[in-house]
């Protein structure tokens, strides 16, 4: 069943939804990355909630004009307008008042959404009988997706991607270093607004498939996921698009394979699965790698501190240091250094002396700045340089370098 779904053999509607969800996932992942890099991920939450009054107003206008209230294009236009108004209000609050951005986001999202709910109850009492479906914008509803709906999503998604492609350089610059961007003469405020405009476009496009509450997930999760795998912004953008697209595709397929599996939530959960995988297993930024690195580092620090203490005949009080030294065969159980321990301790102390010379010497200024107590001197100086330093120190030369 899953296999049929993944190969798009579950019928017309399922195929439409799968294609739409994939496109949506790609454009949301790509657009959301800039938002995430700008550290404004949750602005998307305000934008998406602010679409609700627009959807309702558009419906009311369409009905008042005698049309079909469920015209997707009309509803999306309405949602875009109210999201834009919400965005401007939020910007005004953060720029003109002392309100921090998080409070402004929360205020806009709850007030606009609350007002949307008021409008929704008005529509329910309008007696038009065709209101069914507006609630679908809260959580998405793909059951009755039409070819025209899919086309709107496809065109909207593609247009958003194109705009992102055009604006990617200034947006990256603003996200990375707004002050430098301002110094370069870039209109930060307008680029930010353009970024938000794109997020809004994705939100509007995604209303039909995942709904306004879960679109936030598609904007944020792929970007966060991608960040684990790369330090380069272009790669993060591409990876986020990939993660978003895959989540959309797999999610839609799973959802089509069995009843009672709503598309939006499944896509979000698939996306989250990618995130968890990355959080733990990513090679550099992943948790497992970080924990191993930290343990290894702590071990090195303790051993080095222990060796220095041994070399200077000081008593070691920290149990962890002693345990590590014992395990490495550097001290005996009674706390006395072994032969290897003595040799290593002598070398550690000599290295400290060497560093002392290096750091007191103006000629080695750049090298001296690298000192942090842990760096091996051999990694920053040549053998000849070290030999020269040893001549300055004098004393026994028998220490293995």
């Amino acid at each position, binding site marked *: 069943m899953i296999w049929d779904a993944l190969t798009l053999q579950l019928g017309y509607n399922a195929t439409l939804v799968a294609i739409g969800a994939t496109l949506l996932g790609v454009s949301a992942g790509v657009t959301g990355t800039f938002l995430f890099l700008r550290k404004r991920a*949750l602005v998307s*939450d305000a934008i998406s909630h602010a679409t609700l009054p627009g959807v309702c107003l558009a419906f009311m206008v369409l009905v008042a004009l005698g049309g079909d209230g469920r015209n997707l294009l009309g509803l999306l236009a309405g949602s875009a307008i109210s999201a834009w108004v919400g965005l401007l209000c939020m910007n005004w609050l953060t720029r003109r008042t002392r309100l921090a951005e998080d409070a402004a986001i929360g205020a806009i999202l709850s007030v606009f959404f609350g007002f949307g709910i008021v409008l929704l109850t008005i529509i329910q009492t309008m007696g038009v009988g065709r209101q069914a479906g507006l609630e679908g914008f809260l959580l998405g509803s793909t059951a009755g997706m039409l070819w025209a709906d899919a086309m709107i999503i496809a065109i909207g998604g593609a247009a958003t991607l194109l705009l992102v492609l055009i604006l990617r350089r200034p947006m990256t610059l603003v996200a990375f270093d707004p002050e430098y961007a301002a110094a370069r003469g870039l209109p930060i405020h307008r680029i930010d607004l353009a970024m938000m405009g794109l997020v809004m476009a994705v939100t509007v496009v995604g209303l039909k498939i995942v709904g306004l509450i879960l679109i936030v997930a598609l904007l944020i999760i792929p970007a966060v996921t991608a960040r684990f795998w790369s330090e380069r912004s272009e790669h993060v953008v591409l990876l986020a698009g990939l993660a978003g697209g895959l989540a959309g595709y797999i999610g839609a397929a799973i959802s089509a394979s069995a009843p009672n599996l709503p598309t939006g939530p499944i896509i979000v959960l698939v996306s989250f699965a990618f995130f968890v995988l990355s959080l733990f297993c990513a090679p550099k930024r992943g948790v497992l790698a970080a924990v191993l690195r930290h343990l290894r580092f702590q071990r090195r620090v303790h051993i080095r501190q222990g060796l220095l203490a041994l070399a200077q005949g000081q008593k070691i009080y920290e149990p962890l240091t002693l345990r590590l030294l014992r395990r490495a065969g550097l001290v005996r159980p009674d706390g006395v250094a072994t032969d290897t321990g003595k040799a290593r301790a002598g070398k550690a102390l000599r290295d400290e002396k060497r560093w002392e010379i290096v750091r007191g010497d103006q000629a080695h200024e750049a090298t001296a700045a690298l000192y942090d107590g842990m760096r091996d001197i051999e990694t920053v100086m040549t053998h000849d340089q070290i030999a020269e330093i040893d001549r300055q120190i004098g004393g026994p030369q028998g220490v293995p370098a």
Partner: protein
Amino acid sequence: MSGEEFVPLSLTPLLIGTFAAIACALPGNFLVLRKQALIGDAISHVVLPGIVVAFLLTGAISTWPMMLGAAGAAIVAVVLIEAIRRLGQIEPGAAMGVVFTTMFAAGVLLLEQTDTSTVHLDVEHALYGNLESLIWLDATGWGSLLDVEALAGLPPELSRIALTLVGVSVFTWLFWRPLKISTFDEGFARTIGIRTGALGMALVITAAIAAVAAFDAVGSIIVIAMFICPPAAARMLTNRLEAQIAWSIVFATASAVSGYVLAGYGPLWLGGSDAVSAAGMIATMSGLILAAAAMFGPCRARIGAHTSA
């Protein structure tokens, strides 16, 4: 309006709405000052999965398991956010976004998988509650306030939210000083031995309890609005924390009362026949109050001396 009509139909929803608004606004003051305003947003989203899981476990719509489930979900969410933020070195906003959307999605999925057709449990209800239905049928007028038999028929939501309000107030009163100090200057708080981590967690849990109790009665929209709007509006009126708290209570009450009245009677005045969502209207009113404060409040602007050493 006469007492015979007001007491049974409007008194209890008004009280419940007001208590819920104040219970959320109190911890909201500190959340807004700590730049954690969106914790309220996250909590109100994860209440849904908590309730659904509680329903799956108990198989019935009963209040206490559901409130426990919701509170549990809120705590799980907060712990997850903190864990993801630290483990993945991700900014708090994005960590929140990952956690609450995922948990919300899980809640929706569980709801779809469960046969809830026989019970009243749906997403819309979770979002905007049903304040209007919390009426006091046993009351016949003001006299019922002294009538023990009629009092027994008060909606249980009223006593729950009243109890929650008392709890939240006691927490705020008891920990006033450490809360203030650690919000203002966390480093200093730590040097005088305040356990800032534990205190921050306690604040979030208090907020979660307020959110869950309020949610039970009025839905999650009010919860987010009341966490943020009254404190934010109050901040623009004063430069003293004590006064800010007082103003936020005034604004929360004003939003709840005006929102409820407008939702119930506004459409009638405009010639309509049916009331609109009270929860939505209360949120809207709190937004209008915030807008007014943002435009005219004496302390609305940021002040200059933001030196960085």
